[in-house]
């Protein structure tokens, strides 16, 4: 194993990691703040990917124009779900929310399958060419994914730390009743959390589309890995889910050096489950 391969995989791991982080951070926000386990979240990621593909097929020429359009579409869907179905199951036991969101995920996934067919759709790289990274030449688009992803992640973090809704979100996460008694409009905070999580997942899907292609099962394939990231990073811990996401991304990428890709995935799974058994509360403490 040469240093160049190592460097390549480290960079790849970061690009995976950023995408995992975008999805996992949304899940951890919903779980930590609203006690809401959303198995359907992976489908929002998938719909983000289909969204950007669709806009490009329709004729919106620029990938970077299609991105916000796709994100807004998914955002609309996320809010529609919140307003209709999800509102009724917010206060239910975790099993019910898990089942209900599983049902929604199945409907979305099969619906997309029925409409668009099972085959993976390829997307041209919006940024082509290679860039010199020290001794290696690395695909420019992957660097763009890392860059854009990090910007969005950091931006969301700043929002959560500084803005009014950010403070309210954290207050509700720490003591919902007391926040309510101080005047925080809790349902509105939930809506904001759903919107934020949906947008993050959608961005992840859009960025992933040129890398992995667009298929109906891409959401289901990634959702459990995202939950593992959440559990490693600590429930409700935004920073933890980001770090966990990058960690898992690296484990998979580096594992792929020695193992087949699918085995690398399982290896990561095994390692993570072992870690979880040792520290069930999450490896990183739930700092808010």
């Amino acid at each position, binding site marked *: 194993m040469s240093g160049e391969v190592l460097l390549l995989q480290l960079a790849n791991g970061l690009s995976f990691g950023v995408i995992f982080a975008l999805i996992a951070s949304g899940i951890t926000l919903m*779980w930590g703040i609203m*006690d809401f*386990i959303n*198995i359907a979240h992976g489908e929002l990621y998938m719909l983000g990917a289909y969204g950007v593909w669709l806009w490009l097929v329709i004729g919106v020429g620029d990938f970077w124009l299609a991105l916000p359009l796709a994100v807004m579409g998914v955002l609309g869907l996320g809010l529609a779900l919140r307003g209709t*179905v999800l509102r*009724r*199951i917010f206060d*239910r036991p*975790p*099993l*019910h929310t*898990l*089942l*209900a969101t*599983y*049902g*929604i*995920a*199945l*409907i979305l996934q*099969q*619906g997309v*399958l*029925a409409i668009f067919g099972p085959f993976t759709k390829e997307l041209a790289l919006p940024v082509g060419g290679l860039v010199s990274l020290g001794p290696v030449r690395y695909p420019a688009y992957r660097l763009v994914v890392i860059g854009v992803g990090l910007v969005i992640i950091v931006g969301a973090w700043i929002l959560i730390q500084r803005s009014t809704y950010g403070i309210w979100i954290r207050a509700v996460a720490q003591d919902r009743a007391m926040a309510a008694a101080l005047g925080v409009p809790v349902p509105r905070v939930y809506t904001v959390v759903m919107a934020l999580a949906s947008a993050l997942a959608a961005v992840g899907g859009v960025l992933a589309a040129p890398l992995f292609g667009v298929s109906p099962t891409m959401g289901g394939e990634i959702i*459990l890995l995202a*939950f*593992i990231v959440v*559990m490693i990073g600590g429930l409700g811990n935004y920073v933890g889910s980001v770090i966990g996401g990058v960690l898992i991304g690296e484990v998979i990428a580096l594992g792929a050096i020695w193992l087949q890709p*699918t*085995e690398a*995935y*399982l290896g990561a*799974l095994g390692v993570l*489950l072992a870690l*979880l*058994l040792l520290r*069930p509360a999450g490896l990183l403490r739930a700092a808010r």
Partner: protein
Amino acid sequence: MTTAIVEARPWPARVARPGLAVVVILLVAGVPWWASSYLILILTSALALGLFALSYDLVLGVTGLISVSHATLFGVGAYGMAIAMTRLEVGLLPGALTGIGAAMAMAWLIGFFSVRTAGAGFIIMTVIFAHSVEHIATIWTSLTGGENGIILGVARVTLVPGLALQFAAGSWSAYYAAAACLGLAWWLCRQLVDSPLGLVLRGIKGNEGRALALGYRVGRFKILINVVAGAVAAVAGILYALCQGFVSVDLLRVLLSVEVIVWTILGGPGTLLGPVLAAVIMSLGIEYLRTVTHQYLIAVGAATLLVVLYLPQGLGGLLQQALGRGQGARRDA
């Protein structure tokens, strides 16, 4: 709390129950005489899934353990048997025992998890666990046949010298075996639930903290019931595989684990009979849908969502609500 006054039930009621049981048994036993091979096959599958739901009701309905990995036990039972029979060339009974043993070991592991973690974390971990096994089964093609599964063909077992049973897709033996197992298991589970052990389990579901405070080794009981339920689920999986003639990854899927939860909720957790009926009816329904359209999974998803939204207490609960309102009114008057 008012105590119920127990009166001797009038003789029509006392005859009705066993009478109904006899009628049911006759109906069930008579099916293969008039049904087509295909119908026998899907009914056997439905019965096997009913047995599966029964085993899960022990876990969820009676003890309150929320595991989303029960189909893993169902599938591992079937795979264990299939792998032993095809790769190790053993007979049906040793193969079945292998499958049951493997499932019980896995059930022990799940039970072990359940003691270490609780609540939503445990639920998610069972999902992850189930998904991992599903994934392994799909890629480890040399062992499991991957997506194609393992074909069982015709399996023969000799009960006593001179009397041999033959299991193949749609065979009568599989049907009667499934019906007999279901009936026997249901009766045994009823005894279990009414026994002191059953009381402890229900106590754990009702108030785990109190059970702990009373000195019960709650963890041990959880693991125990999971292993017992795992064995029953494995038998169900084996029967299912025998009647279909092959084993595939579909038996292990997270989807099946979710479906059995829906059946249990719909039928009424803890009633034992409810989940069985719900499983039989709904699996028949899904089978029918599958012949009609490719997109039957959308209906499954929709059904799951609707059950959770509108029938979280199951059909039994709905009935109870309707009855309870009547009773409650009488009590207040």
